[in-house]
């Protein structure tokens, strides 16, 4: 498992207060009641700080599942 995978998993588990084992590739906003727009922004800011990048609004809208979050992060140069 790469650094992006690990960080996304641990940050999502921490922000959404769910077990890390539940953060699967296809887990999406619609599946987790606690994953609302405010929690989403908390997650985005945590990811930006962790990887030292700045995401665009389009990125933020696209990052609605674990798989999409990882795809965008890799496109933005987050280090694996």
């Amino acid at each position, binding site marked *: 498992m790469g650094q992006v995978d690990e960080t996304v998993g641990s940050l999502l588990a921490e922000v959404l207060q769910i077990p890390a084992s539940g953060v699967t590739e296809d887990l999406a906003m619609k599946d987790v009641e606690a994953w609302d727009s*405010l929690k989403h922004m908390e997650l*985005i800011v945590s990811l930006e700080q962790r990887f030292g990048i700045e*995401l665009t*609004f389009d990125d933020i809208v696209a990052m609605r599942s674990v798989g999409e979050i990882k795809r965008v992060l890799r496109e933005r140069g987050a280090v694996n």
Partner: protein
Amino acid sequence: MELRGKKVIVTGGVRGLGRAMVDQLVRNEAAVTVFDLNLAGLEELRKQQSSVHCVECDVSDHEQVQAATSRYHEEFGAADVLINNAGILYSKSLIKITPEGVVRHDPTMWNKVLAADLSSVFYMSSCIVEKMVTTRTKGVIVNISSVSANGNAGQSAYSAAKAGVNALTAVWAKELSPMGIRVVAVAPGFTETGSTKEAVSETILREIVKKVPLRRLGQPEEIAEGVLSVIKNDFFNGKVLELDGGLIV
């Protein structure tokens, strides 16, 4: 936030507190735009402060706000700072006992004050913040509240509206801070402006001054300095700065 070169919108910036803010913002080299419904006042402002961009808009009207902010965004892009200053001061108690009987607070004026002092803040902020968020602009919203938010006898509508403004300040600070947008409020006490003199008689003003530990009214420039300081201080957030000469202690 350093003000130099920042795009700042001031609602109700033609006179009184708003005008004092505009003058100080211009001195700090901010790019100032004033939204106001007073067309003659805007023309006068344009003559006196040529760098200020003037927009005729009744900010208590949602359609006007949508149209005016849309034009602003096309021309300038996202604003860095919004100062929600526009409003009306109205003083009436819930009931008034007269020789002719009991007179109730006019519900039309209740709605008008809530629209001018509270709904306007919601309309302007939603339109301006939407653009800030979609462009990832880190900005500041400053809501001009009042010490009346604590409950001033004789100001049902005004006090309710300003208490609502304080609540929105707290709610939006929680919602928007993760996106880098601070939301703050400044609550002046009794200040020496035209609207204070229009709304409060000289006799009552003299009584009010006796209750202020500093024994005087605030000056518009002092309130404007407070507004600029909360914009500049990046750690001030979700709070109301009360500038009342010690009236509420």
